[in-house]
């Protein structure tokens, strides 16, 4: 019997496995028991009503999928009156993902949804900052600092900050979020990508650009999580291409305290419960009393930073 519970900032989760924002809704209850999950994470909500992107919204690529759903949102009132009461029907803590085009907008939304029944806020700061020419907040430490500072002032709830893998300086962004009072980091969102149909010459997504998720991104996001884990003390939730319990173990070894599962649930609705069971067996087989012993347990003989060629070209 492994202790699967994990602490993330002030919050204790029954186990380290939860859905990734935008890949989960109450419909999953038709197929699995949601009470088995470590937490429930909503699709990102915004204050405004939004319709989302043109079709097609998804495309298959090697080892993964592209999506450009956009953030179809029914706004805060709908969340408060419909979504929130609905999720009271299940026991895992509810994490609400939010987004806004300005730091003030983020803060106002965070304040508005700091309601009983909400266990934590996940700030999806991979969204365009209209004050920075549309560049996502999470691309730069400075814009990250501004938005996290305002969010921190706006809510007493645990604040998770979801990073973008599209930046070249993810560790610096992580540090900025830590310095401004984030309670945890989620590493990471999808990687900006595209695909073209060579027959029609048209983009394969209505939105032209979309986010790559699934196994293809795992080695990249794992590296980014490792870089973040070496740079900050905050708990980090790994997210990107996790399909199996062994994938989750890889993230934990690199320094994650918990994991989010997105695309895997589309391929197997029982992916999350299977990963939970798999982690349990994995720890059991190795005599680990607690799953948290895996966090950061990568075994790497430290050599000189130079030999290690940290930021050096692998090739």
């Amino acid at each position, binding site marked *: 019997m492994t202790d699967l519970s994990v602490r993330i900032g002030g919050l204790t989760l029954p186990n380290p496995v939860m859905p990734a924002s*935008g*890949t*989960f*809704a*109450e*419909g*999953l*209850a*038709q*197929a*699995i028991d949601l009470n088995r999950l470590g937490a429930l994470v909503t*699709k990102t909500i915004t204050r405004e009503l939004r*319709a*989302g992107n043109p*079709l*097609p*919204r*998804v495309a*298959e*690529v*090697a*080892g*993964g*999928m592209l*999506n450009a*759903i956009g953030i*179809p949102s029914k706004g805060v009132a709908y969340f408060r009156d*419909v979504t929130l*009461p*609905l999720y009271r*029907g299940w026991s895992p803590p509810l994490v609400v993902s939010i987004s806004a085009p300005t730091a003030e907008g983020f803060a106002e939304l965070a304040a508005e949804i700091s309601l009983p029944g909400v266990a934590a806020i996940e700030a999806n700061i991979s969204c365009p900052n209209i004050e920075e020419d549309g560049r996502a907040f999470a691309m730069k430490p400075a814009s990250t600092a501004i938005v996290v500072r305002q969010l921190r002032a706006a809510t007493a709830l645990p604040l998770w900050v979801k990073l973008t893998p599209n930046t070249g300086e993810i560790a610096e962004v992580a540090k900025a979020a830590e310095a401004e009072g984030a309670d945890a980091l989620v590493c990471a969102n999808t990687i900006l990508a595209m695909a073209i149909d060579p027959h029609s010459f048209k983009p394969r997504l209505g939105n032209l650009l979309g986010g790559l998720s*699934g196994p293809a991104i795992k080695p990249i996001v794992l590296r980014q999580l490792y870089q973040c884990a070496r740079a900050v003390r905050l708990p980090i939730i790994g997210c990107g291409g996790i399909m199996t319990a062994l994938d989750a173990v890889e993230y934990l070894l690199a320094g994650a305290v918990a994991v989010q599962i997105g695309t895997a*649930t*589309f*391929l*197997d*609705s*029982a992916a999350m419960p299977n990963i939970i069971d798999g982690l349990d067996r994995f720890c059991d087989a190795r005599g680990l009393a607690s799953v948290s012993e895996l966090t950061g347990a990568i075994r790497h003989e430290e050599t000189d930073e130079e030999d290690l060629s940290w930021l050096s070209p692998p090739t």
Partner: protein
Amino acid sequence: MTDTLARPPAFETQAAVLANDRVNGEYAHLVVACGQAAAAQPGQFYQLACPAPPGEAPFLRRPMSLYRADPAAGRVEFLYKVTGAGTRGLATLRPGEQLGLLGPLGTGFRLDPAARHIIAIGRGAGLATLGPLAEAARAAGIAITAILSARRPELVVSQARFAEQGARVITVTDSQANSGPSHVERLLRGLLAERRCDGFYTCGSARLLRVQQTLAREFSIPGQVALEQQMACGLGMCFCCVRDFNVGGTIIHKRVCWDGPVFDMLEALP
């Protein structure tokens, strides 16, 4: 909320392939044993984890309508057209092999117990989706006329099945030049004149849908349409399968997998 919690469960399971045979040059017929997952209603669908055909790797699951269900025997049938990587992969399945599936999913056709006679009109792969209406209508004591459209006569599927259940079957094909909307409209007006229509059920053709919408409005007859859209999750979570619907004059998005795949005919935008 009630919606969610009221839905019967969908099962994630490894089904055993019992048979998988070519029906004609384009379609194949797959029979699987999947236990409890076989308890499906006409119009519902399954998400199939298609195996990889040589040199290709379908990533997402593929939605496929229930073609026939035998819940007592735990058996489900699909009738699929081989079009791309996923269905090519399906076509490689041999009896005894496994197929990951999730279902039954979505909301199916509703039969009005007060109806006496309905018309099912389908085309192409849509004929597979309409198939289960044959038995369902008969069981409900509702007479049915099936208008089955295809490119060529040998591609018409479900014909025998409707006939066996006592349906009146009309086939129209492109090669016989009687499948155009105006010809079908004439057929329908004839049936309507005979008062043989308390409801339209359709799938597989935007042109035929438009014809029926016109007549449904003109004669105030209810109708249901099963729609298709590319899917990822199949459980209403990802919002990739939305389509536009006209609900009381406003255009709104609905998810084909969750709010459908069967929709009120008049709301659908073909």
